[in-house]
């Protein structure tokens, strides 16, 4: 085993099992990027101000969604970057673009980029002039600045915050609960969803907002819930600004943590917490059935399928399922405890890198593996995989039962990995 690319968990350090270095990008693109996320704001138009090479990825993402009419660009030339005033270039470019529209978009998400930081672009000046020139248009302040993402906020975090900034506090609707910050609609059979609706609450997600007006009703929430890590920053900021109570209830896969989250929500809303002992037993049965079904077949899990890959590994291993590998380049703070438990209880579990240079050339011939996630499927070279990203909206005990079913289904079924995993934004329209 080459420890530069694979390591037993007992030898791995937290939070970075592998040395930092050059980065490989596998041909696996089911997770959402900022273009996909931005399209969730009803009819918003996205404008990027950047060099050709940076522009290409975002505009082609939109093209593959069949949404070229919702994205535009101001292309920065070398001369403009070196000799011009970046603030002026940005303002003039966006203004010129908007003047090309027969009908102005209701909302525009503006994406300056890394160079705007380095050239000290005064974006507030840009926005103040744009808002003066186009008074009916909502301008959202996003960024596509990956140079900041390792040490500061990621573009995705900034975007999720920006998309909630136009929402103003409204007269609270005591029955409205907002679930925000994730790209996958919450499973309506989950305990979280059922608890809310059975107690008379109506759940509002971004996917329910078809118009700007409807989107603005998010400001009337009684409680905001976020269940996805990269949404936490923005939903929290929105909640504080609008004085809406906020709960971060991540997609837990540990029974006690699930109970704790549900209890927290019940206490916050003043509703009774059901006894979920039976659900725990159902989970145990589902996992036990899965173990029998897989009959010792190896399982590999990756970080794109769910924000808790190590949690899933522990859940499966502790139910006797043969988890061979977890594909992850780092361990998040949320998974520190389960990482330590795995180190002690399953020390031979292998962690495999996905971005190290050597990951490019690791043989992809584990066709007998059942992969949980697209990256695991590609790296293993298997056609048996759970085609899901970002947790898939699964939550709680129901989520665990569903996941067990999906793994069993993947074991039974061959999928066309080469056709599926390079497609961008699982769940979005794909024109390829």
């Amino acid at each position, binding site marked *: 085993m080459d420890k530069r690319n694979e390591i037993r968990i007992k030898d791995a350090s937290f939070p970075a099992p592998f040395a930092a270095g050059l980065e490989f990008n596998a041909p696996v693109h089911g997770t959402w990027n900022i273009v996909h996320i931005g399209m969730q704001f009803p009819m918003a138009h996205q404008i990027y101000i950047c060099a050709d090479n940076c522009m290409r990825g975002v*505009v082609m993402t939109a*093209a593959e969604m069949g949404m070229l009419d919702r994205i535009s660009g101001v292309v920065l030339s070398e001369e403009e970057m070196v000799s011009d005033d970046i603030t002026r270039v940005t303002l003039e470019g966006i203004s010129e673009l908007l003047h090309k529209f027969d009908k102005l978009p209701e909302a525009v998400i503006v994406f300056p980029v890394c160079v705007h930081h380095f050239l000290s672009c005064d974006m507030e000046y840009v926005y103040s002039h744009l808002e003066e020139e186009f008074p009916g248009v909502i301008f959202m302040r996003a960024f596509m600045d990956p140079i900041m993402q*390792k040490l500061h906020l990621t573009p995705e975090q900034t975007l999720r915050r920006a998309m909630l900034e136009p929402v103003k506090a409204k007269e609270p609707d005591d029955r409205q609960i907002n679930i925000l910050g994730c790209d996958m609609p919450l499973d309506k059979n989950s305990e979280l969803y059922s608890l809310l609706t059975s107690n008379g609450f109506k759940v509002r997600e971004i996917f329910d907002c078809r118009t700007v007006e409807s989107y603005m009703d998010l400001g009337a929430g009684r409680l905001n819930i976020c269940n996805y890590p990269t949404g936490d920053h923005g939903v929290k900021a929105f909640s504080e600004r609008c004085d809406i109570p906020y709960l971060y209830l991540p997609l837990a896969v540990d029974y006690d943590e699930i109970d704790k989250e549900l209890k927290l929500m019940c206490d916050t809303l003043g509703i009774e917490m059901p006894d979920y002992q039976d659900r725990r037993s159902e989970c145990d049965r589902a996992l036990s059935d899965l173990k029998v079904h897989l009959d010792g077949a190896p399982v590999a899990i990756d970080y794109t399928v769910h924000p808790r890959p190590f949690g899933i590994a522990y859940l499966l291993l502790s139910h006797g399922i043969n988890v061979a590998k977890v594909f992850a380049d780092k361990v998040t703070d949320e998974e520190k405890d389960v990482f330590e438990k795995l180190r002690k209880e399953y020390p031979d579990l292998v962690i495999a890198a996905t971005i190290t240079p050597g990951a490019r050339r690791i043989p992809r011939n584990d066709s007998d593996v059942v992969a949980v996630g697209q990256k695991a499927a590609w790296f293993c070279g298997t056609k048996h995989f759970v085609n899901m990203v970002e947790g898939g909206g699964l939550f709680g005990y129901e989520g665990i039962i569903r996941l067990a079913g999906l793994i069993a289904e993947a074991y039974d079924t061959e999928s066309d990995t080469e056709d599926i995993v390079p497609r961008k934004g699982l769940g979005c329209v794909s024109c390829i």
Partner: protein
Amino acid sequence: MRNTFKILPVLTGDVSGAASALFELGGMTVIHDPSGCNSTYNTHDETRWYSNDSLIYITGLNDVDAITGNDEKFINSTIEAAQELNPKFISLTNSPIPFLNGTDFEGICKIISGRTGITTFHVDTNATGDYISGASKAFEAYVKAFAVSKALRSTDQIRVGIIGATPLDLANPESVKSVASFLADYGFEPVYCLGMDAGLDSDPQDKLTDVDVNLVISSAGIRAAIFMEEKFNIPYVAGFPAEGMKDALAGAVNEAYKSGVSVCAYSNIVRSASDRYIVGEPVVASSIAAGIKRKYDIDIDVIAVTVEGLVPVAEVDAYSCTEDTITEALKSAGAVIADPLYRYVCPADAEFIRLPHLAMSGRLYLKEVPDLCKFDPIKEGLL
């Protein structure tokens, strides 16, 4: 006026063009970039990424390292990867922030080369150019690094090097194979194809000058060809063996061999101004237009959408690379041969013949891309 795109995508950028050009040559390309350049390239602009384990990476540059000028991480990471993977060469490409902060790539190349013993060169991109700019600089840098001596001229069969092939222009792999077949059919010896597998020698590194004439099949090859002409007296012919052009192109290769003078094979095929247009890369588009003129006596004007002006286009043609100028150029078009996305900027009543171009529409219409050597819209009744 700023360069704005309201509806059209931008073409593939220079960084991706450089990576594409070097993809099959056994090296390791390192893009000094925070993120994005890798996924953009391999998702939309690289058809070989899924199953060909070419070594192309980013450095994952962060703001602090950029501000403090910490090149050590970049250098050490590259050296570590090279020692692990043993590439035939290392190429370093640039992106906007290292460009703005004046990163000394030439110096870094010397350090890496000195420490690894692996030939290391810089491809002068900065993400503001189009793919032709990046690919042509990459081919040029590669040739400069490895073309060392001129072999004796062949006396019995003219040896030809094919230069400038990338999937960005030739997304259907049959196209480049057809180019090699064309050469063989006309009695030439195709020695290698720089950039793509054409069923020839897959490792041209030591054979770059074992040719008598270079055939530049897209403008991505022009800089390398000019270098080889100036340094080794190897003439080049710019042209693509499109339908109707094969005889003329073969004649041009023979002529260049005899005279030692480089030529654009399509330049002396005079076309008149027309309301029919072909939009695309200048060498391929000009060759298709010239071929149609020769075969059917139909005039088609070329709108060359790249900015690399080293390849001349005819008097009736134009370089046009912004959405505004392309829209203006096509405003009176009666017929247009172009990537399907250009439909957005064509007059509604213009006849439109789809010719997907990876550098424009990425993988959207990949399955429609024809073997360009056989593309004949007249014969197919499209025009």
